[in-house]
């Protein structure tokens, strides 16, 4: 589904990613861990097509297509979803209009008619209940005045609405209390199928108690320095990153 080869990326002339190699297959869950500033969020931003980052070398194939050639909106329509570390507040744009536009743009891309109003409202209600979100949140402006936890839930809500093939969750667990974390993790697990894949970017092992990864990667200084199974996350929890960075 996703093949990253020798990926280098810069932001403001500073090289952050220095040769990432990663392959994700359908049905898999990958965890990307690492200390602050190692390049985890940059990787997520580059995958989603944030224009602030520039890829200088390497390639990314998504479902066999050259991802780097695609505009951010086309990546999303192809089934890539980024749960933002810092979801953006958009005053004046209601969640309902925002989601309707997003859902319909994806349908248009697939050559489908716009979603009928009643189906859309039902979809909204179902997914909202899945995340245990308050009904008034979806009638408000996008993320405006949402608490940190509500914003993160809202990201997963959007993910549920759009049912992507590849989800990248960038620090979705940070800022969540234990109950919210459980709800978010349950949401992610319910959405996981044999056909889609997830990349979890996280600092802590905590999230991985709820979502079982197939592979755990340790990112440091722009490179993946270790890959292992779920047991690697447990070891990191006990020993920190130092033994990997300064062996």
């Amino acid at each position: 589904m996703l093949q990253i080869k020798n990926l280098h990326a810069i932001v403001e002339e500073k090289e952050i990613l220095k040769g990432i190699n990663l392959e994700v297959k359908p049905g898999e869950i990958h965890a990307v861990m690492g200390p602050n500033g190692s390049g985890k969020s940059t990787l997520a931003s580059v995958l989603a097509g944030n224009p602030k980052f520039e890829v200088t070398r390497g390639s990314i194939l998504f479902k066999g297509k050259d991802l780097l050639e695609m505009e951010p909106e086309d990546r999303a329509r192809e089934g890539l979803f980024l749960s933002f570390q810092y979801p953006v507040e958009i005053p004046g744009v209601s969640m309902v209009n925002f989601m309707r536009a997003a859902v319909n743009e994806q349908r248009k891309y697939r050559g489908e008619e716009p979603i009928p109003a009643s189906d859309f409202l039902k979809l909204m209600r179902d997914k909202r209940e899945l995340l245990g979100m308050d009904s008034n949140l979806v009638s408000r402006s996008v993320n405006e005045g949402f608490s940190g936890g509500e914003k993160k839930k809202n990201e997963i809500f959007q993910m549920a609405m759009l049912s992507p093939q590849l989800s990248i969750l960038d620090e979705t667990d940070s800022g969540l209390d234990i109950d919210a974390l459980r709800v978010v993790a349950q949401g992610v697990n319910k959405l996981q199928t044999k056909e889609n894949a997830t990349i979890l970017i996280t600092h802590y092992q905590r999230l991985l108690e709820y979502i079982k990864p197939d592979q755990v990667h340790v990112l440091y200084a722009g490179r993946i320095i270790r890959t292992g199974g779920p047991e690697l996350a447990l070891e990191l929890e006990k020993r920190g990153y130092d033994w990997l960075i300064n062996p």
Partner: protein
Amino acid sequence: MIEQQYKDLFQQFRSELDANSVEGMNRHRDAAFDRFQQIGFPTSREEDYKHSNVARAFDADLGLNLRNIPIPVNPYDAFKCDVPNLSTHLYFLINDRYYDKPLANDPLPEGVYVGSLQRFSEEHPDIFNAHYGLIADYSDNGVVAYNTMFAQDGFVVYVPENVTVEKPLQLINILRGGVDLNVNRRLLIIAGENAHVKLLVCDHAVDDVHFVVTQVTEVAAAAHAEVDLYELEENSLKVTRLSNLFSEQLEHSHVVTSGITLHNGYTRNNYCFRILGEHAQVVAGGLAICDRKQHIDNFVFLDHVVPNCTSNELFKTVLDDSATGVFCGKILVEKDAQKTQAYQNNRNLLASTTAQMFSKPQLEIYADDVKCSHGLTTGQLDEDALFYMRARGIDKEEAKLLLMVAFTRDVVDLIRIDTLQERLAMLIEKRFRGELMRCGNCNVCK
């Protein structure tokens, strides 16, 4: 000197001017003329007109219809108003003249007078003379002096005390002419004690000639009165609109204005609010969407004379192509006006690298126990918001449009007529989509 031409015209055609107007209006002309001779039209040499050289608009060879030659127009043909959409009492001014044919309006509450300024001055001379020309101060405003010299008719709304006009009133200003024209129009709105009235004024140019329009609006809100005045400009590029609104309000009154510029040529809107009674409130909104070489200048003067009053200004501008925007907001809190709350907000969005915005807040505060604030930003669309929306599959252009519509939202929210809010939100979206062509029809009613 071009100005001289208008002075000569005034003297030469004085008898025609008077003959086609009424004594109540004629009696103000001499003093206005004296003042105009001293100050003339404002030019960009004056600080308050730095970015709007208003005098230049009069350089063109303009006709004036002083003899009131009838201009054939059936406003119902020109504007097939589908009233159920926006249920209003509907009136028309053709250039500066009240359209005096019977209109299919529901009866108004007893004592309410809506219609021709001329006729009102004859039927209610006491009320007319107590207001007309007394609120609109032309001592330092050449355009208002000029308007007072030449205005011959206009529109009046009079609501006596304790009367509420439930259904909004709507005035459509139609500009018609076969040659380039100067039109000088007057509006007078008088709300007695505890009277409530809402008025929507729409500007539409029908013919493809140059119009230079001066409009002077006087609003008098007595104690506990509520006056809503919304203006919607949809003119062609060839129209120069020089509007001067003067509002005076007494204790516990509430005045809400909003000036929406959807399509225009060259626009200068002056607002002057004087708060003369305690516990009065004023809300002044403004929104302009300009592109090509359109010019919008909103100039607001807000005078807190007495204590315990609240004012709230929100002006927004969206500029594309080579459009120019100007905002100046003066707030004067006088020495006795303790416990004043005055808020001013000016937010501007530049959608191109060639659009220009000039913005200037000016707060003069002479009382010490007040809450005053102003906020001013001029910038581009939020890149983070744009990326966030694109990351959800929303097309870049569509995302920009949603953000621009969102930017205008809070100005629309100030309007206290729900159907007009909805209508306007739709028109704004159409405007951004480029589907709203230059005026030619009444988009509010249609």
